């Protein structure tokens, strides 16, 4: 047992039962079905033994928002304990069909995205269809499902690459063939490189976020490499499919390691994907090999990366003023990076632009949690405070770094939502 495993299993002994976590838990605040982080975490953990039946299934109502970890004064890894407990339940009882479906966001995205997307989107807004899906599968008929894109981000990037590279073979393709990090000998040495981790949402639903990220990175002199990648596996982790999540992470580590070893940063726009690569997969799945750690150490959320640049005075701050005051929600998965508020820090450099922090714990969607029929209303109740904040702002646009949170905010308020990187691209005067 290595020190991470040890700290996870022993961290329940640091719990002094003060219930600060329960007092702060946004789910326990709105429903009785979840008795609170202390109860299902460090307390119930004492009754969980390998080979013994799970003593209590209420842990399934944990949304995984990690507010408990954030407020715990004694450093108990409550959210990780809960995730593992759910994993144990799934290992015992198997994964329901609904959870199997929504946790394979890559597959679902791949099937939905493309020229036929309007048809898929129509199907998913067609009320009788949603009613049937609700009753048959357990995906709530009102839950915010994303609109599939008629083209994938990777397809766009290939075209984009041809325009900037004059048709030269993409680096990723070379890398695939040789199975090693691509040679960069033919490139001008001044050109710094980053690997962009787009995640499923950008690729299949919101290519505009990836376009903005590429524009911002290129504007700062980086050559963007689109490495082969697959779903980060977080939906699998949060639905308890640890076997599936482990293979997803192993595959990503295989694909990303060559870059990490070369010191090429891996930068992502989805806060939950980057958190999974950095920490969730290693800790929750117990993957602590050198390769896994190298990829974790090389992965950055995009605003973390840009803030580091700014702190080194390397960020291009030649921004056009944007005279706007916008509501901003730092997603719980972003706060779990424990970095403060990088998007607000960087966007504060744009003249005239003001982001107002929601100070809300969670939007309630928590990835796939709020999609589930039995949890939809809980998610909406959790998000109520945030929805009020966004509506009361009077703004027609809200900013949030996480895709599922954006969809939930728009669903809960009717206010459009964007990734903060889109604002930064706008400040650079990039038309997307």
């Amino acid at each position, binding site marked *: 047992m290595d020190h991470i495993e040890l700290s996870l299993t022993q961290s329940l002994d640091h719990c002094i039962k003060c219930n600060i976590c329960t007092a702060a838990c946004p789910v326990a605040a709105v429903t009785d079905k979840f008795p609170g982080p202390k109860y299902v975490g460090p307390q119930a953990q004492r009754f969980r033994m390998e080979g013994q039946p799970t003593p209590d299934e209420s842990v399934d109502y944990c949304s995984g928002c990690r507010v408990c970890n954030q*407020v715990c004064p004694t450093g108990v890894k409550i959210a990780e304990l809960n995730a593992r407990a759910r994993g144990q339940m799934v290992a015992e009882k198997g994964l329901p069909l609904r959870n199997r479906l929504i946790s394979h966001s890559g597959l679902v995205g791949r099937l939905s995205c493309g020229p036929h997307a309007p048809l898929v989107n129509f199907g998913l807004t067609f009320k009788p269809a949603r009613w049937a899906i609700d009753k048959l599968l357990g995906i709530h008929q009102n839950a915010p499902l994303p609109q599939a894109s008629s083209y994938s981000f990777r397809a766009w990037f290939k075209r984009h690459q041809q325009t900037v590279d004059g048709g030269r073979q993409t680096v990723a393709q070379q890398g695939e063939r040789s199975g090693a990090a691509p040679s960069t000998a033919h490139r001008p040495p001044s050109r710094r490189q980053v690997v962009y981790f787009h995640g499923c949402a950008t690729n299949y639903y919101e290519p505009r976020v990836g376009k903005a990220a590429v524009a911002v990175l290129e504007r700062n002199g980086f050559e963007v490499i689109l490495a082969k990648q697959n779903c980060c596996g977080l939906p699998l982790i949060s639905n308890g499919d640890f076997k599936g999540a482990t293979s997803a992470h192993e595959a990503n580590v295989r694909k990303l390691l060559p870059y990490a070893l070369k010191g090429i940063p891996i930068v992502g726009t989805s806060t939950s994907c980057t958190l999974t690569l950095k920490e969730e997969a290693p800790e929750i799945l117990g993957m602590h090999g050198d390769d896994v750690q190298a990829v974790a150490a090389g992965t950055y959320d995009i605003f973390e990366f840009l803030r580091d640049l700014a702190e080194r005075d390397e960020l291009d701050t030649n921004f056009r003023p944007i005279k706007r005051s916008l509501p901003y929600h730092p997603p719980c998965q972003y706060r779990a990076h424990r970095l403060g508020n990088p998007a607000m820090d960087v966007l504060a450099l744009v003249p005239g632009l003001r982001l107002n922090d929601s100070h809300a714990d969670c939007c309630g969607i928590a990835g796939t949690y709020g999609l589930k029929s039995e949890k939809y209303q809980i998610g909406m109740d959790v998000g109520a405070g945030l929805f009020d904040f966004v509506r009361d702002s009077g703004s027609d646009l809200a900013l949030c770094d996480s895709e599922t949170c954006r969809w939930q905010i728009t669903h809960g308020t009717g206010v459009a939502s964007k990734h903060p990187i889109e604002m930064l691209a706008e400040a650079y005067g990039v038309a997307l």
Partner: protein
Amino acid sequence: MMNYDTIVIGAGITGLMAALGRAERGERVLLLAKGHGTTHWASGCVDLLDAEGDPLAAITRLAAERPEHPYAIVGIDALEQGLARLRAACEAAGYPLVGSATRTLLLPTAVGALRPTALVPATMAAGESRQLADGRPTLIAGLHELRDFFPPVIAANLRAQGLAADSAYLTMPPTERHREFGPMIFARLFEQAEFRAQIGGQLAEHVRRGGYARIGLPGILGLKGAAAAVRDLQARAGALIFEIPTLPTSVPGARIFHALEAALLAAGGRVQIGSLVQRAEGILEHAGHEMGEEHEGGRLVSVYSEAAAREQRHRARRWVLATGGVLGGGLRAEHDGELRETALGLPVRAPNSRGDWFDPRFLAEGGHPIFQAGVAVDAQLRPLDAAGRVVYGNLAVAGGSLAGYDPIREGCLEGVAIATGWRAGAL
């Protein structure tokens, strides 16, 4: 916002007061903490000193006798100004504090003992011992659903002290909740008018039958709207209502936290919770010039907080350490008997060996030496090494991490937190 004027480490009363002070001077301030502070573990009252009569006069005497006591280091002014700022913040949050620094109040605890304190939330005021002793009967009421709060025990102990008190368990009004009833869950229920109406009706019935002048209830009567909830319950019950602090999580403590946090955010401060500061980088020298400024001691340059996959580096011109003592996690006893300051690795003044930590008598009059261990500081709260030299000239240490006092035994935990925190914010 990446370069802060001041970074305050610790989110208890000390850290919040210091951060508020600096933010109100127009500085860019970050409050950095590993979790919620010990406010959520405390009574929600402001204890100044366990002294009969006039705490402020007793503090003045104490300061003269013990020049190394934090009260002596920062002076009475810092305490009075800090108390005034805290009161204003609580007032602004609609949660007024009553009492004064010159009169000790005695309020019942969750076991019915009378505990000395100085400022109390208005929601607890009617439980003061002089009122309890006015000869009119008091009812202590609770709910079976709230664990660790036993009205019969409280009432019996009050009676043992000559105070007329009865007890009753109320019937839980129907709610959507069926199993978990922590203090904060109750606080949210008490924010609902319908829930209060049900409880108020039961209380009125008890008042009608028992002629009670006042009713003691657990300190769970609302979070943001506690003062209004208590007024509403009083009107419904036809008697005065007072809250009695519960076991953690302390709702009255959380209210103080929220009042100060709101004041800090309004003053433009930033708050980052969930980030454990684990090491520091500084220049250790004992005098010098930097950017035209003469300084004594070394300079703290950056601190590193634990984060996903790597540490986060923080930089600021000046710093306040407010991470608390052993309870708050600011000091830690290692297995080898060494006492360590956990965030920055500052020198700790402690008994020479583990054998000297405790007085052989458990209830020794002077307490146990280990409980006075902490970081020694100069008049500007700058940390000192064993030779009495300033370690970092741009760092102030405040609150529970300080050496030279025993907050629990002396009954001055909040008072020293406020006085030293406010002083650190004003330096």
